């Protein structure tokens, strides 16, 4: 996969990586000592994607694991390279575009858009209200 320029987007895997999401998972899973990727036909659960510092991430749901990938909405699956659990379906919110548009209005200085965050449960209205509180139009 061709890496694209870092435009003002909420970053997904394809925006920055030199390799496909599936290949990255395969390599890191293998390096974690879990061998080849199992077939992705057995889904054991779902993970809600979230936004952290301007990136869509999928985080391992196992308590204390903490492993995460920058997620890919075109291949919304997750398997943990650290604890080996998976596959999970990564759920992106139905209001993904609206959420992204509101977060992209928040200014970025340097490489870390630290105010561009979203967690499942936060509504579009809540993000808009936060923007308004900070004077963001």
């Amino acid at each position, binding site marked *: 996969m061709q890496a694209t320029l870092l435009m003002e987007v909420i970053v997904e895997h394809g925006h920055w990586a030199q390799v496909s999401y599936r290949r990255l998972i395969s390599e890191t899973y293998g390096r974690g000592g879990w061998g080849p990727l199992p077939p992705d036909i057995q889904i054991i659960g779902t993970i809600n994607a979230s936004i952290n510092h301007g990136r869509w991430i999928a985080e391992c749901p196992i308590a204390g694991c903490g492993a995460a990938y920058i997620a890919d909405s075109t291949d919304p699956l997750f398997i943990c390279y650290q604890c080996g659990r998976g596959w999970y379906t990564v759920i992106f919110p139905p209001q993904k575009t609206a959420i992204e548009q509101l977060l992209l209005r928040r*200014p970025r200085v340097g490489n870390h858009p*630290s105010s561009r965050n979203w967690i499942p449960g936060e509504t579009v209205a809540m993000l808009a209200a936060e923007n308004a509180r900070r004077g963001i139009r």
Partner: protein
Amino acid sequence: MATGTYIVEVDWNNDGTFTGTGETVTSRTLHVEFTRGRDLNSQLTGKSVVGSLQLLLNNQSGDYNSYNSASPLTGSLLPNRLIQLRATGPSTATLFRGYIDRIIPQPSVKGLDTVLIEAVGPLGFVNQKRVSLPILLDTDTGSAIGSVLTQAGWPTGAAYRDIDAGETTMRRVWFQQEAALKAMQTIEESEGGWLREAANGRIVFENRARRGISPYNASTGTFTDAAGGSLVYTNIVQQDPLPFIFTELRATIQPFTLGATGTLWRSRDTGTLVPTLPASGTFVLWAKYPNTSAAADAVGVGTWITPTATTDYNVFTDTAGTGTNLNTAVALTVATFGNEMRMLFNNTGTAFGYITFTQARGVPLLLQEPVGVSQTSTSTIYGTRTLPSRAQWIPNIDEGKAWADWNLQVYEDPTIHLEMTYVANRDNSHLTQAIVRDLSDRITVIATGTRSNLGFGRDFYIETIKQVIDGDRTHTVTYLLSEAVQRSDMWIMDTSDLNTRCRLHY
């Protein structure tokens, strides 16, 4: 490595000083960073957002846990406490002054307990309030900003405000329950100026001419990529110029006129539904306009007429209005706004009363036909890139046209926009720059050396500041910069030379 001396303080007991117990938190500071300034480093389209500070403290003591009753700060761990970061060496200045927004304990069962304190700048503090203003007539933008700040409860005085008189006089301006910052942003747009936060916690309103005069027309430091330069940057990014180019500017002017004096509002309740006014009691009614009885082009009230007894209201001892009239025992206090009048009835007598009739009279403000003006570049290199003005209170066609003319001259061609970073610890000169430089300061950036090879050496204004200071006092500074010359080379009488500064400002 040169290191600065910093002090971090929180006014936990809310007494306006930082001398109370536990109010100096410097020795517990693990990390502090702040950002202040525009959302985009354009003098045309970038506007201030609320500044923010993140402070990470060692919380091994548990002092910053709001449910820890053993904490010496119990009961004081609250939002809106004043917080500041200042430096005392090698130069002395406040770097950020604001108000706590959130206190988030971050316990670690096996590691170090910390607390994250998030704060906002003064615009964030003010923006907690909504403001209503009566319709102001022929008011300059600076005065209107002052009125909004006062309505929002922001203190007066030079320690809190630095407000230029506006270059623009707005024919009419008013707000109805508008967030304070949003209200001020509409005024800022109409001026073509800048509303911002200063490092020392003041709210600053720059009129559109400020950057043309001293000290903003002189560079305060030269940053270079040259080896051996006295001030050097470690990273520079020349931003894509396209989002900053506009080849067509459009403005809309909304004229108003006053209508005929008349009754603008009336309470329709009768019988048992009329408001009651017990002896020594009060009742508040809000007259609202425009309402369903108003003309379609009505938008507000130019002047409310203070209600008079009998003509505009009656208070009786019964709901039908046939008993004893209590008007003489009733005191009425009013407050007027653009779309509302607050009427406070106070029954000073001993009899139970009913407000059987209420109306509000005044002079309605009516919309006239809006007028659009535009200016378009003759150049076709960048295609049509249209910027509609967001200004709501441009007073007349001439000024709208002048706004379009001026900004087209500046923005129809590419201008340079930079993100520049330097490490303050390089030496005391860099530290001093990090400590004393503030928004709107003018600096020179040389990027002609082989390290960056960008091929320019020009002056820029600081539009956004981000600073990061770690526990070991490593200190990094990032500025978002906009090119200075386009804004500051306007013709100034008795100052400018012919054929060197010829842009006509408005």
